[in-house]
């Protein structure tokens, strides 16, 4: 049969070629037709860097007929290693999304009403500059707030805020992983990477690495668990994909992970299983720890965590036996509880006492690569103190990032001073911050709001003017160095010209700067900026290489143990790894992690827990048509036992109510969650009608979440909200 087909194809080919109507494809000795595949003489392949999440994977864009047709993975990047996840593949739809912002717009109706007037760039710039000048005249430059999240062009936005004279830059970390960063910095003086590729024993608390985001850590773990027989212990109130792949899953009682860790430390010290040489040579405060953890027995921890004491003891033994190739993994989005910093500190201490610092299969301080800098005119330091009073309330927190929730409280109260203009780049505080009603109140209080984004986020929906940014495939961006065990440099270059009347962020910033009299600070092109960065890269012919490959990775094996020399000074107060932290003590915090039991939900209420799925990045991309196919709305996970009690049927609508808001969404009655929690996914229930696939579909967790934060880092505490659930 195959033969006759081929013969017939051959016949058709001859006829077709005679007609000259279609291209032919050569296959072996036979030539046959391929309909619809043009000869694609204009086919180009452009290496670039994905922007759909913060991982910075390298991609090769295939362009045909001026359109991006496909994104292929680029194997040269050690931080993406020949893979692109669902989001990365779907970035094409970001370009051709009918919902995307296509020209600058000024609001004409009430805020949030969705009435917009398309305007020219000049008009939009003039309008924004006038408003900013008004606020500055009335309240000073500190009366403006500059919110942004991670992105290669974020630097220009931040610089505009600083040049404008505002101290109030606020970034995403306190809605994300500020507690991890601070806890590891407080202990080791730096935030290390985790060598999952070589680890033999990994413990994770809630870091849902097989499901919520796909990075090399995910790939290393799959390889580790499935091929190299590494053991994965996983704690999560929910049975996630990671739980399903783990060797052991413990549905830990929410908020008690710290008890589990402290009991592990108790066992390791009681059984003399810690690394004595390492502790003596590189750490300080171990003796205080010995006394401190005596109270935290496995039997006590069993009552707190609902993890059997015998398992805690066994895991502690296995963990220390596998050291230094064992890890308590830190994870991302670490913002759960008000004691989050201390829980992360305990992990860091546990890792330290078994001596897995700077070891193969342990924690490794990040190797860095140098990069050139474009030198521009410096500006004066802002004179006013920050509105979030970070120095007073969070003396150890990262000043440049600010503290989101405290900032909102202070802006709402108008103390210490009024903030009346809100500039936003790439961030969606409407969904990212807990308690949406409060965020709306903050929006109401603003004299002026401008948003720069590629899509009409919920934040943009409430803005006065919206500046459409070109999507990443339409932009050339600054060079990014990715420190790590295998450090690399990535470059994002323009793949196609903008298809709408959009601009890269730098040009938007320049347009505003010009009208604000700040042009001198932004008197360069992206090419000049990038060239300056190329100059100091440790790569021969850096510019040519980066344009051709899009990525450069240091070759060779990583070197472990660079910090394990007698004269190495850790960037801590004592120059040692600080188990007991004097710095914390001086700032008024517990110098060693002290456990306090979390509040439990009253009867018939549930703890609301949150999570992500790797099809979407936070509240982004749920409106991407290729990704929305996998999940059209979010639902509320509830265990069958309480569901039966309340007569909640799978797929039926329920009303979920907290002290600050209520939402309606479908119930998912599932065995895969503890009976005392309910879970919902982030990124649905949008208010913006220009997110047409998810506008008013499902629900936004931000509506329900109460305002709470970690005491030390100021990180939002996202798992402290109790909710009522009832049939709708």
């Amino acid at each position, binding site marked *: 049969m195959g033969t006759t087909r*081929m013969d017939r194809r051959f016949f058709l080919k001859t006829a077709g070629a005679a007609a000259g109507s279609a291209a032919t*494809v050569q296959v072996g000795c036979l030539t046959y037709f391929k309909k619809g595949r043009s000869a694609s003489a204009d086919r180009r392949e452009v290496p670039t860097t994905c922007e759909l999440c913060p991982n910075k994977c390298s991609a090769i864009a295939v362009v045909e007929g001026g359109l991006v047709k*496909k994104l292929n993975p680029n194997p040269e990047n050690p931080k993406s290693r020949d893979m692109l996840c669902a989001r990365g593949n779907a970035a094409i739809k970001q370009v051709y999304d009918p919902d995307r912002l296509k020209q600058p717009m000024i609001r004409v109706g009430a805020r949030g009403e969705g009435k917009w007037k398309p305007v020219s760039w000049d008009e939009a710039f003039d309008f924004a500059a006038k408003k900013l000048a008004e606020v500055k005249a009335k309240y000073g430059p500190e009366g403006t707030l500059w919110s942004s999240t991670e992105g290669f062009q974020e630097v220009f936005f931040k610089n505009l805020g600083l040049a404008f004279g505002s101290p109030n830059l606020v970034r995403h970390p306190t809605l994300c992983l500020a507690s991890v960063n601070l806890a590891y910095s407080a202990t080791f003086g730096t935030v290390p990477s985790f060598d999952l590729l070589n680890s033999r024993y990994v413990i994770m608390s809630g870091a849902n690495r097989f499901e919520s985001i796909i990075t090399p850590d995910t790939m290393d773990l799959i390889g580790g668990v499935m091929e190299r027989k590494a053991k994965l212990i996983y704690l999560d109130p929910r049975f996630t994909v990671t739980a399903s792949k783990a060797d052991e899953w413990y549905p830990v009682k929410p908020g008690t992970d710290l008890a589990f860790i402290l009991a592990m430390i108790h066992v390791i010290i009681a059984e003399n299983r810690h690394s004595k040489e390492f502790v003596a040579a590189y750490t300080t405060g171990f003796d205080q720890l010995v006394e401190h953890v005596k109270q935290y027995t496995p039997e006590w921890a069993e009552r707190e965590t609902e993890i059997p004491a015998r398992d805690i003891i066994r895991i502690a033994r296995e963990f220390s036996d596998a050291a230094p190739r064992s890890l308590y993994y830190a994870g991302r989005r670490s913002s759960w509880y008000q004691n989050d910093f201390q829980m992360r500190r305990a992990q860091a201490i546990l890792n330290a006492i078994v001596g897995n610092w700077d070891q193969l299969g342990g924690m490794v301080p990040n190797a860095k690569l140098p990069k050139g800098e474009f030198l521009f005119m410096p500006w004066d330091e802002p004179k006013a103190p920050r509105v979030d009073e970070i120095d007073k309330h969070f003396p150890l927190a990262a000043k440049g990032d600010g503290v989101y929730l405290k900032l909102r409280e202070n802006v709402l109260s108008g103390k210490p001073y009024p903030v009346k203009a809100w500039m936003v780049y790439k961030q969606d505080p409407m969904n990212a911050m807990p308690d949406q009603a409060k965020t709306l109140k903050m929006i109401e209080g603003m004299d002026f709001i401008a948003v720069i984004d590629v899509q009409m986020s919920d934040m943009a929906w409430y803005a006065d003017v919206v500046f459409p940014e070109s999507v990443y495939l339409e932009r050339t961006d600054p060079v990014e160095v990715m420190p790590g065990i295998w450090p690399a440099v990535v470059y994002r270059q323009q793949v196609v010209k903008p298809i709408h009347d959009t601009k890269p962020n730098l040009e938007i910033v320049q347009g505003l700067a010009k009208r604000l009299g700040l042009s001198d600070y932004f008197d360069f092109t992206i090419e000049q900026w990038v060239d300056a960065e190329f100059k100091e890269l440790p790569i021969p012919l850096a510019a040519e290489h980066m344009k051709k490959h899009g990525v450069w990775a240091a070759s060779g094996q990583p070197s472990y143990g660079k910090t394990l020399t007698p004269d190495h000074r850790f960037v801590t107060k004592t120059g040692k790894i600080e188990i007991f932290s004097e710095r914390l003590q001086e700032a008024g915090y517990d110098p060693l992690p002290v456990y306090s039991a979390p509040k439990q939900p009253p009867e018939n209420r549930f703890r609301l827990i949150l999570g992500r799925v790797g099809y979407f990045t936070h509240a982004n991309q749920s409106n991407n048509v290729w990704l929305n196919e*996998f999940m059209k709305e979010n639902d509320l996970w509830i265990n069958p036992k309480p569901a039966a009690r309340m007569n909640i049927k799978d797929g039926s609508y329920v009303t979920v109510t907290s002290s600050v808001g209520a939402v309606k969404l479908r119930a998912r009655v599932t065995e895969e969650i503890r009976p005392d929690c309910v879970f919902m996914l982030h990124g649905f229930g949008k208010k913006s009608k220009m997110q047409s696939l998810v506008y008013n579909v499902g629900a936004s967790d931000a509506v329900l979440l109460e305002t709470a934060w970690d005491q030390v880092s100021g990180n939002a505490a996202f798992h402290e909200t109790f909710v009522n659930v009832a049939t709708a």
Partner: protein
Amino acid sequence: MDIRKRRYALVIDSRKCINCKACVVACKAENRVPIGDFRNWINEERQGEYPKLRIDFEPEQCHHCEHPSCVRVCPTGASWQRKDGIVLVYADDCIGCRYCMIACPYDARYFDEESSTVGKCTLCSHRVDKGGIPACVETCPSKVRVFGDLDDPTSRIHELLATRRYHVKEPQTGNGPQLYYLV
């Protein structure tokens, strides 16, 4: 390159699948698959009672069978098989009768409303013919699928099938499916 000496197949290690859907989107982009239709997909099985639970994922697509029933039932010969085993639909000859969709034991085909023809996985033959690998195989973060030539004794899939236990789905149909699932 002589295609008559090749027999393409996929070996799938389902345990490594995390249901991330990268393969599904890569296929959608590579092959312009319409919204709502899929040339590959991931089966999901969830079982157990809290806290004894289990989730299994299993990627699937056209099995590019040795004796494809879809080809047998096609009244116009639009469904055909290359000598290297790849089963294709020649759209010009497809009259949209959908017999092949009923005949396929794996439900691997879909009806494209726009062109009124049947669509299915081509094993990215256009990439393979240029020495490449299918888009789903390439993009996968955990490299669940291994693509290769069964007739090449040096290939990775040859080695895997020689050294690992595996099964095929619905062997009783006599179709001779060429998606090999490692056990």
